[in-house]
């Protein structure tokens, strides 16, 4: 098997995992807590390899395309009309998406 990286299989801290779940709006399933913490531990250990690389005086690249932003002409189009879009809504009322009550 091709194994160019050596990992020690760290575990990801469980409290931090619950916090990430809250931030990501994903419930952390109790039964999968152990495997998830081991998976995330491996991934974090893997990406931590980069910490030792010297990036002093290097600019970040967010996108590889060497082109300034192209603007398109501001012309109205009739694709994606409200009715078409609402067709996919799990719940709608009148011309609106409908969600559980937010204000008490």
């Amino acid at each position, binding site marked *: *098997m*091709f*194994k*160019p*990286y050596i*990992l020690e*299989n760290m575990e990801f801290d469980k409290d*931090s*995992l619950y916090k*990430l*779940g809250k*931030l*990501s*709006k*994903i*419930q952390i*399933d109790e039964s*999968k807590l152990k495997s*998830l913490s081991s*998976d*995330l531990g*491996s*991934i*974090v250990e*893997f*990406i931590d*390899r*980069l*910490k030792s*690389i010297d*990036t002093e005086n*290097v*600019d*970040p*690249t*967010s*996108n*590889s*395309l*060497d*082109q300034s*932003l*192209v603007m*398109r*002409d501001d012309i109205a189009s009739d*694709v*994606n*009309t409200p009715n*078409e*879009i609402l*067709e*996919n*809504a*799990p*719940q709608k009322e009148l011309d609106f*998406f409908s*969600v*559980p*009550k*937010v204000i008490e």
Partner: protein
Amino acid sequence: MKRNLNFIEASSLLEASETTSVDLTKIYLENIKQAEELNCFNTITAERALVDAEKSDLRRQQGTLKSRFDGIPIGVKDLFCTKNIKTTASSKILSNFVPSYESAVTQNCIDAGLISLGKLNCDEFAMGSTNKTSYYGPVTNPWKSNKSDAKLVPGGSSGGSAAAVAADLCVASLGTDTGGSIRQPASFTGTVGLKPTYGRVSRWGIIAFASSLDQAGPITKTVEDAAALFEIIAGHDPKDSTSSIKEKESFYHNLNSSIKGMKIGIPKEFKSDGLPSSTQKAWDDCMKLLQTNGAELIDISLPHTMDALPTYYIIAPAEASSNLARYDGVKYGIREEGKNLIEMYEKTRSVGFGDEVKRRILIGTYVLSSGYYDAYYIKAQKIRSLIKNDFNQAFEKVDAILTPSTPSTAFEIENEPNDPVQTYLNDIFTVPINLAGIPAISIPFANDENGLPIGLQLITNSFEEQKLLNIAKNVQDTVNYESVPKNWWQE
């Protein structure tokens, strides 16, 4: 009719009136039916395909063809939005989503008269390299080892797209490639897979995974087919702000296989003792072949090669966690009811996403969270600059770079490592290319000791797809790899 018809052959047969689009479409729909076991398609659009094929035949009679490829049946990865046709990204969360618009790429195919047979299975939200993360179940590789009857992965994430072409369920297909998702499955299935320069092909209407890396491309039976289909889908699109304004060339028309005097770089960082001997031999043989055909080999160094994979596993999940925030049970897709809005979000996303997608959202959220953003995300973007710079320097000396496409050939579906990082290694040779935004192609070169295809990867500088395709054609025409899988699924 000949099995495994390619794009160019199909167009010649149509032109010579030796077949019709309806007949071709019927043959492929029958092939698809017989290959149900491979699970290549999420949705088969038989009725619509036949209607479209009839229209194409009518255009041919009336001399109003949309292009010389009018009437050829293809398959489309289920990541491209298709108007009025279910588009799921192989996820439960989008299992009921019917787009009200057509992606730019599929619109270009419609404008060229191509016939879509349906939507091809892939890893969920294109996250994976085995096609096992699909909500609709794994795709089976049409290839089998000559030493075992075990089912093999087709690679991923465009596993359905690659397997469907290899099994002759369509003439060619469309895939997307964020870290190797076209080239790795092409390599595992003996097909040709092209990842164009970032910006060459519009991303409008492609369900986003990592927006700064995603790029659509063809998976085909030959290099000529790749050039032809690439030419159809490429071009500036005002609806994609990162679409290149460069004029598209006549890639197919300009195809020639002359490589005399070209310099081909061999990066020392891709050499590894862990590489299977058959892959190493294929790589060596291809170097000799290029030399014999008039190219010069040059040893080069891409010093940050080993940093590319961890860099990718910061940038891609970060962008994914942001892109996938839109799946919240409000605007489209499924909804799980909750006591309040937050609980509705959490339940919907927990039920709707699979394990790999959740892992990547969590990691992406982690590297973007307060206190970690500079240490991970900005750091990764800086290393991305170093990786891009490695390639810039290399291309001052060479025309193209030759590497293996993958560190192994197709492996057993049941035999995936438990540790996700080990699975990520599948993309170790393909990921640096996406980070640099340059084009690359995987072409089948030989079979390993188990009779499974080995793919080699050619890489050129940004917007040099013509040169890339020309070198690939030279290799293809010299090596004459004509191996196809035995059609065991029809027995």
